């Protein structure tokens, strides 16, 4: 089924997407935190392909799996968990349309919650043994729920990119959304940060996803993710991702 949600982004469903689902976004961002975490979720929960997101704003590519074409942005499912996972850098000029389409689709599917998994770049990442995870929410009630689970809130600052817009559009639509950002490298793949983000996700959703293998294979994951990280960095520069480092003006 094709849902014509915008002129340039289409969401294809090939399997059942239940109502009341929790949608997790694993999109390429700093440290590829969302993608690395998403790939680990997909294998840990043995998620199945239920759809894809297509756009003429994406690069003209397919990802080959065992000789068969797969969309670069896939929708996977395990129970009531839906994962949006991208295996290509999201072009800066596709960010608005993609974020709108994801939120509109989530509304149409009566999703319960969207959780975006990502990173927040910190300069001293190399010396951090345990990266912290910060969260933001689309509404006061969801934010309060995070605080009750002792999750640190990102009080002030900027978020740039698809997760910023997903949060904004979700807030506009009254759809509960959370952005989980683990301290990470800016342009080096960061499986440790991805593991930390998953542990916070476990806390929020009551899951029990193990991250031992993710950490054990961290170096191999970093080696294999170099090209993807490089292309993601180019797009982050186009969308002025470095604005996340900016200090916002003081409110008097």
């Amino acid at each position, binding site marked *: 089924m094709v849902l014509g949600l915008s002129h340039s982004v289409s969401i294809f469903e090939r399997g059942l997407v239940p109502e009341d689902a929790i949608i997790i976004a694993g999109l390429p961002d700093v440290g590829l935190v969302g993608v690395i975490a998403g790939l680990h979720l997909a294998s840990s929960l043995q998620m199945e392909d239920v759809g894809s997101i297509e756009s003429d704003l994406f690069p003209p590519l397919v990802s080959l799996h065992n000789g068969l074409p797969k969309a670069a942005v896939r929708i996977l499912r395990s129970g009531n968990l839906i994962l949006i996972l991208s295996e290509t850098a999201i072009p800066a000029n596709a960010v608005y349309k993609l974020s709108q389409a994801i939120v509109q689709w989530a509304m149409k599917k009566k999703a319960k919650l969207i959780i975006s998994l990502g990173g927040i770049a910190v300069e001293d990442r*190399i010396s951090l043994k345990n990266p912290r995870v910060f969260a933001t929410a689309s509404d006061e009630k969801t934010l309060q729920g995070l605080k009750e689970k002792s999750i640190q809130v990102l009080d002030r600052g900027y978020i740039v990119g698809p997760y910023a817009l997903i949060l904004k559009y979700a807030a506009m639509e009254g759809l509960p959304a959370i952005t989980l950002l683990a301290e990470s490298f*800016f342009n*080096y793949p960061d499986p440790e940060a991805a593991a930390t983000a998953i542990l916070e996700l476990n806390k929020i959703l009551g899951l029990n996803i193990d991250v031992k293998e993710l950490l054990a294979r961290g*170096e191999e994951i*970093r080696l294999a993710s170099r*090209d993807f990280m*490089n292309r993601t960095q180019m797009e982050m520069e186009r969308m002025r991702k470095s604005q996340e480092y900016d200090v916002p003006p003081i409110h008097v």
Partner: protein
Amino acid sequence: MAFERPSWRTRSSTIEPLTNVIVEMEEVIVTADIPCADVSKIRVSFVDEKTLEITAQLKRKFRFQDFNISHRRGEFSRYHAMVTIPVPIEKRIALTCEKNILEIRLPRKSIVST
């Protein structure tokens, strides 16, 4: 516009690492992400006044098949990068490597102000 080239060089069996160059007031910090490298086999040298050459041996050889890619041939035994330093520096190198991220600190040349 130059044609994009791969980050894998099969002829020289090398992989280009991701790198960063940060210019501070008194030093330039170059970092390189070198996962799976043998940290005891890293070599950093100057090619000229503003170019640094980094090589690091991998702990084992990697082939495309290790990443489930069957249509390409080649194996890789080390990282190799040429890094351009944007400001004048002293030819003194201080190296550290933590979590397989190489950090190279280079003192900047002092400029006499008039």
